[in-house]
């Protein structure tokens, strides 16, 4: 395993994927939750629409994005050429393929994290905001002084779940299998996909299982680290 450059490659791709996906989901999820926080009819509608991608299967998601991103004639490249942007092969260029997979993953997962944050925001008493406003705090100040500190349990949950999702939830396999097959030049070969390839394409079951074990160890290490850094998810200064 240690001598297999493709294994190291897939581990590196996985780490880039985690490092990009987890913060993006946090920011996008929290941003959307704040946007549709108040319970108006319009917001209820927006929430439903934002969550809708989650109910569609990842295979369909992969196929739809693939057709939207087709080289030259795909909708995105048509739009790009209208804007006088250079034509980009979103899924065929090793420089862009992983970014594309990350963006589609965020698009697919954002509704779920928005709902988790909405649940967390609901638990913050309104009185705190009113008191802050009377004391002359602006929206930015009350966000950093009230919302963020009181959201810590939710934040911990989101970071934990999204890290697990980035390592081994189904989108790591389904999207890659449909959209890129790990290519081009192995640039989107996430560890889960590489494990699948070794097992079911090359019949290297033992090798695949060994790599999966390493992946679980990495995941456990990240989880333990997060627990230690946050004092069991409670955040020492909450």
């Amino acid at each position, binding site marked *: 395993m240690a001598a297999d450059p493709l294994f190291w490659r897939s581990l590196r791709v996985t780490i880039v994927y985690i490092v990009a996906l987890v913060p993006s989901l946090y920011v996008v999820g929290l941003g959307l939750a704040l946007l549709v926080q108040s319970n108006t009819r319009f917001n209820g*509608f927006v929430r439903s629409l934002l969550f809708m*991608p989650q109910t*569609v299967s990842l295979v369909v*998601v992969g196929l739809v994005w693939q057709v939207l991103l087709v080289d030259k004639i795909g909708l995105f490249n048509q739009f790009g050429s209208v804007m006088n942007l250079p034509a980009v092969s979103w899924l065929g260029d090793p420089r862009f393929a992983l970014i594309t997979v990350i963006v589609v993953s965020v*698009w697919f997962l954002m509704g779920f994290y928005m709902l*988790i944050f909405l*649940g967390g925001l609901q638990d913050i008493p309104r009185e705190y905001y009113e008191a802050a406003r009377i004391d002359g705090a602006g929206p930015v100040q009350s966000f950093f002084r009230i919302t963020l500190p009181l959201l810590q349990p939710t934040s911990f949950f989101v970071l934990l779940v999204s890290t697990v999702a980035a390592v081994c939830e*189904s989108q790591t396999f389904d999207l890659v299998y449909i959209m890129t097959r790990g290519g081009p030049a192995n640039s989107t070969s996430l560890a889960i996909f590489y*494990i699948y390839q070794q097992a079911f394409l090359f019949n290297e079951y033992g090798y695949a299982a060994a790599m999966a074990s390493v992946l679980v160890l990495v995941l456990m290490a990240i*989880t333990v680290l997060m627990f230690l850094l946050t004092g069991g998810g409670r955040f020492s200064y909450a």
Partner: protein
Amino acid sequence: MHEQAPEDRIRRRMLQPVQLALYLTGSMLSFMAVAPLFWMVSMSLKETNEVFSANLIPHRPTLDNFIYVFTQVNFFRYLWNTFFVSAVVTIVALAFHSMAGYALARLRFPGRDVIFLAMFATFLVSQPVIIVPLFILARSLGLLDSYAGLIVPSIFNAFGIFLLRQFYLAIPRELEEAAIIDGAGYFRIYWSIVLPLSRPILSALAILFFLANWNSFLWPLTITSNQDLWMVQVAIASFRQQYNGSWNYIMAASTVVALPTLAMFVVFQKRIIESIKTTGIK
């Protein structure tokens, strides 16, 4: 007090552009969220030479793509397989999960906490990670290429059991004590008191389980090679290989696969959204 009134009015007037901006942002983002799905449906209704034109409404809408999909491929069979497997998994899983959750919440037996912890530990390990041992296990049990192979491994789900256990812990004990005095056994209590009380949570779980199974891809892909047992997700993935480039057919097949889940979401959206918001289950 009197001095605040005009200030409030100013504040309200000032809020107008902010509110407008929020409306615009909300509309734009929700459009971005669903636009790819609109284009999926749109392309499925277009003729071959129009597929890549940017207009959302087809110039000459046609159902030919759908007819092609259903006549060229055994799509009804795949839909039926998927429906059958998803329904059986959902029903069996709910029966077992609620019994397990109840036992873990109420019965006292040696090793209960260890069992609970062991189940909870699997929460972080998702299916793709254990796909290789799972496959080897299923193979040695002779489950390859069978409905049992599609159904049995999908039944266990730590979160369902965990959630039901938490729910049962919150039911007041007095209800069950009254039943014990009346001479009811454990199963009787479970059947006539606990189950009816858990109807809302069971229906929420049922929707989520059904959706998850309908959409599952990796396991059906791994365990079935016989085309008669294909589930829809596997079918459209291979359809895409077979009709490489015929995007109008591929989009028609995708629409057929996505419509049931989208319809389920539209009908049950309140329940789905509430249950995820409060518990974080998927």
